[in-house]
C-alpha cells in the first residue's frame, strides 16, 4: 500500500454532498443569514465531498494505522489486550435511550450498570461503584474528590497533602493537584518498591492519603502494602488504588483486601474495551462501605450524564464471558507472558531490577548499544522505531522516569506463545543489529508509511489546522 497523503478538505469540490437531509414540517420562513446579528454571514469552511469520497478516504486512513487487531501491541501500562467483537455489537441496542429519561423507562440500562458494579465489586473487593468518570485520569480525580469529601464529612479539613511515589503514573500528581491536594513524593527504594520506612516520616494530620498502583509501574508487587496500609490508616489517611495496573491481580487478589479504600478501574484496559485511538474509555470508581456517602456526593456530577455508558456495556459483556471460571486465569496468564519475555531477553537488554514481575516489566535500554568512539549507540527510541519495521507496536518508552532508557513491556494474556516467540526473536535480532550497526536503528523505521518526523520543528512552528493556502 502506497503512502496516502490527502486531507478530506483536499478532496472538496463545490456542490458535492455526502448526506441526505429531510426538509422538516411546516412552512416557517427560515431567517438564516437575514442580516440579524445572531445568524452567521458566511458558511463554515467544511469539505464538500460525496459519500464514496468519504468512505474511501477514511478507509485509506485506517490502513495507515496499527491496532491490536493488526498485531502485537506490548505497550506497557496500557494493557492492549484483544477486544472481543461481540462486545462491540451490543451498545447499539441502547442507542436511542436519552440520558435524562425517567428511571422507569430505562430499567434495562440501570440493571446493566448495577450488575456491572456488582461484578467489579467481586473482582476488586470494593463495595460501591460510580460509572460517571469517562477515563482513568477522570476516575483518579473523582476518587480524590471522594477522598477529600470523606475527610470533610468527618469535619477534618486539615488534610491537604497526598503521598505519591516517584514511580507513579504522571496523572497521579496532576489529578491530586487539580483536586486541591499537594502531592508529596515518596522515593522508591533500591528494589524499586515503596519502603514503609520512607512513608513514616511523611505522615501526619495534614495527609489525606496515599496513591499507589500495585504492582507499580516497574511491574513489581508492592509487597509491604500491608504495613503501608496500617501506617496510612493509622494517621487517619486513606489508600487510593490506581487501577491502571489491575490486570495481573484479576482472579488472584483484590485491592479491597489489601487495605485500599478507593480505586478506579480502567474498563478499556482490564476489561477489554477497545482504546479507540485514545478514547472513549471508562474509569468507574469503587469505594469501601464506609465511603458510600462520599461517593454519593459526587456520583453523576463529574460528567454530563452517566459517563460512557456504551463502554460499560462492552465491559459487562466481557465480564459475562469471563465468569467465575475464567477470571482466575486472567491475572496469572498475563503475568506468565510478561515473565516469559523478560527471561527470554535479559541477556540482550538491561534489566535494572531482577525479580519476578507481574503483568509488565521495564528494561533500561540495550546491554550492547553498539556505541563506539564517534559512533553513537542505539537508544530505546531507536529500538522502538526498529520494532515498527518488523510489524510490532513499540513498548512504552522513557517511562517510568526512574531510568534513562526505560522500555516498558506488557504483553497481556491474549497473546499466544507463538506471538511472544516471534516478538522475542525480533527483539534479539534488533539487539544484534544495534551491536553491529546502530545507524540502521537510528534511521528506523524504514518500512512504515512515513519515517521519523521532525517533531521539534512541528512544535516550533505549529500548524494545527488545515488552511487552503498551506
Amino acid at each position, binding site marked *: 500500500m502506497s503512502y496516502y497523503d490527502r486531507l478530506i478538505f483536499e478532496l472538496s469540490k463545490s456542490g458535492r454532498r455526502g448526506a441526505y437531509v429531510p426538509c*422538516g414540517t411546516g412552512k416557517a420562513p427560515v431567517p438564516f443569514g437575514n442580516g440579524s446579528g445572531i445568524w452567521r454571514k458566511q458558511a463554515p469552511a467544511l469539505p464538500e465531498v460525496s459519500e464514496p469520497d468519504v468512505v474511501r478516504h477514511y478507509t485509506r486512513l485506517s490502513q495507515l494505522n496499527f491496532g491490536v487487531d493488526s498485531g502485537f501491541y506490548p505497550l506497557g501500562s496500557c494493557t492492549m489486550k484483544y*477486544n472481543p467483537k461481540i462486545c462491540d455489537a451490543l451498545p447499539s441496542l441502547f442507542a436511542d435511550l436519552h440520558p435524562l429519561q425517567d428511571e422507569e423507562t430505562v*430499567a434495562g440500562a440501570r440493571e446493566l450498570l448495577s450488575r456491572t458494579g456488582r461484578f467489579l465489586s467481586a473482582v476488586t473487593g470494593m463495595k460501591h461503584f460510580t460509572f460517571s468518570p469517562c477515563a482513568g485520569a477522570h476516575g483518579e480525580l473523582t476518587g480524590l474528590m471522594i477522598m477529600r469529601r470523606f475527610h470533610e464529612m468527618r469535619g477534618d479539613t486539615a488534610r491537604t497533602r497526598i503521598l505519591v511515589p516517584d514511580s507513579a503514573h504522571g496523572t497521579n500528581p496532576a489529578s491530586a493537584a487539580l483536586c486541591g491536594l499537594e502531592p508529596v513524593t515518596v522515593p522508591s527504594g533500591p528494589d524499586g518498591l515503596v519502603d514503609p520506612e520512607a512513608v513514616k516520616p511523611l505522615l501526619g494530620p495534614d495527609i489525606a492519603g496515599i496513591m499507589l498502583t500495585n504492582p507499580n509501574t516497574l511491574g513489581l508487587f508492592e509487597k509491604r502494602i500491608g504495613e503501608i496500609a496500617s501506617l496510612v490508616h493509622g494517621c487517619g489517611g486513606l489508600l487510593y488504588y490506581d487501577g491502571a495496573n489491575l490486570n495481573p491481580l484479576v482472579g*488472584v487478589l483484590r485491592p479491597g483486601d489489601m487495605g485500599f479504600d478507593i480505586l478506579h478501574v480502567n474498563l478499556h484496559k482490564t476489561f477489554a474495551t477497545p482504546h479507540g485511538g485514545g478514547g472513549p474509555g471508562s474509569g468507574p470508581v469503587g469505594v469501601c462501605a464506609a465511603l458510600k456517602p462520599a461517593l454519593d456526593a459526587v456520583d453523576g456530577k463529574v460528567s454530563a450524564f452517566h459517563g460512557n455508558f456504551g463502554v460499560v456495556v462492552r465491559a459487562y459483556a466481557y465480564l459475562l464471558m469471563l465468569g467465575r471460571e475464567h477470571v482466575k486465569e486472567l491475572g496469572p496468564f498475563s503475568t506468565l507472558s510478561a515473565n516469559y519475555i523478560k527471561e527470554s531477553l535479559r541477556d540482550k537488554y538491561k534489566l535494572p531490577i531482577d525479580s519476578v514481575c507481574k503483568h509488565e516489566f521495564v528494561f533500561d535500554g540495550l546491554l550492547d548499544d553498539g556505541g563506539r568512539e564517534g559512533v553513537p549507540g542505539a537508544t530505546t527510541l531507536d529500538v522502538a522505531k526498529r520494532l515498527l519495521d518488523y510489524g510490532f507496536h513499540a513498548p512504552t518508552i522513557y517511562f517510568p522516569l526512574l531510568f534513562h532508557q526505560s522500555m516498558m513491556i506488557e504483553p497481556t494474556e491474549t497473546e499466544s506463545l507463538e506471538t511472544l516467540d516471534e516478538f522475542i526473536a525480533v527483539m534479539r535480532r534488533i539487539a544484534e543489529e544495534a551491536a553491529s550497526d546502530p545507524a540502521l536503528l537510528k534511521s528506523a523505521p524504514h518500512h512504515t508509511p512515513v519515517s521519523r518526523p521532525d517533531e521539534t520543528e512541528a*512544535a516550533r512552528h505549529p500548524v*494545527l489546522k488545515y488552511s487552503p493556502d498551506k
Partner: protein
Amino acid sequence: MARIPFFPHTQEDVSRMLERIGLSSLKELYADVPPEFFHEGDYDLPSALGESEVRADVEALAARNRKLIIFAGQGAYDHYTPTVIPALTSRSEFQTAYTPYQCEISQGTLRYIFEFQSMICALTGMDVANASVYDGPTAAVEAARMCVASVRRRKRIIASGGLLPCVRKVLETYARYGGYSLSISENPLSELDDSVAGVILPSIDRTGCICDLSGAAEAVHAAGALLAVYCDPSALAVLTSPAEWGADIAVGDAQPLGMPLSYGGPYAGFMACREALMRKLPGRIVGQAYDREGRRCFVLTLQAREQHIRREKATSNICSNESLMALWATIYLSLMGPEGMRELNEACYRSAHDLRGRLLSTGIFEASPEGEFLKEFTLVPRRDAAHLHKFLLDKGFFAALPDEEGRVSFCVTERRTKAEMDALVAAVELFAKEEGR
C-alpha cells in the same frame, strides 16, 4: 470446562513458559505476595457464558428499556446517524489502536484528529482546537481552568445561569475542589470586577433561545477577563460563531454531530481558542510535520503542556481524548458539508416552529416571551408540568421536560416525522381535554 476463546494458552504452552522462567507453577509467579492477600475460593461472578448467551442476556436487558419518541434535548440531541459513520469508525485499525504515540504507524488517527481540529475551528471561528476531551461539561471546566491559568492572580469564574443544567452541575462539582471559584449569575456582565478571570456564556441558553452576545466580549475584556462560550456545534453551522462575538474560548459537546443518544455516552467535548491561548489549551493537539523524506505527516505536538511531562504542574490531568468520537464527528461533518449542515438546521427550525405553534393552539400553554430559537424551545404550561410530562411518557413520548421554574422544554430534530409530531400534538390535546374535565 470450556475454553475461553481469547486466552490462547494450552497446558503445554504454560509448561514451556514456566520452564523458561524457572518456575514450576503459576502460583509461584505470585511468591512475592503475602499469603493473607490471596483470594481463596470462588469469585462472586456468574458462571461464564458463551457468545450467543451473552448476546441474549444483553438483548433481554435492552428489551426492558422503553422505546420512546424523543422530543427533548437539554444537552443530548436525537439527530440522525448516517450509516457510513459506524461502518467506518468500527474499522478495527481505528477502534483497536491506542493514543498515537508511534506516529509512523498512527497516521490514520493523527490525520483525522487534525481534520477534526480544523472542522471545530471552522465552526467556532477559532484559531486552534484540541483533539477533544471527555464531554461538553468537562470541556467547560477546562475552559474555566484556562481562564484562571491565563489571567494573573484571579480565580473567579462567572457562569451564566442560562447554561444547560448538566454543564452547570459539573462546573459546580469541580469548583468545590479548587482551581477556580464559581459564581452563577443570570446577568454575568453586571458582576464583572477585578477578581474575575473568566465568564462562561451559552450560545443557546437552556430554554433554547439563541443568545445575542453583542457587547459581551468588549465588557469582559474591559474588565481584564476572558470570555468562553458554550455552544452546540451543529447549530454553529448557521449561528454567528463565538470568535465573531469576540470570545476567547469556545467549548461544547460534539454529540449533536450525529452521535447516538446512547444513554449519555460516549460523546466528545471540544475546545477551541485564540492563538494567544494556544499553550494553555489542555489535552492532545495534533500538528503538521514533515518526515525525513520531506513527506507531510502529522504528530502529537506541544506536549510540554501535558501531565506526563509536567506532572503536578500541569493545568489539566487529561491524558486521553474521545478520539473515536472525534472521528465520528469528523465523518459526520464531511458527509454533511456546509450545505447539508444548513439544510439540517433549516429542517430543525421549520419543524420546531411548526410544533411550537401547534402546541400553543392546544390552549394549555401560555404564550411565553419568545426569543429566536432553532430546535429547542420552552413553554409555560397552564397545568402541572410534571403531570404533563408523565402523561406524555405514558403515551410513548419523551417530551415536555420540566425545569426548576415549572416550565417545560421540547426539542425537535430532523429525525421527527410529521406523523410523530401529529401524534404528540394529539396526545397534548387529549391531556388538555382530560385535565379540563
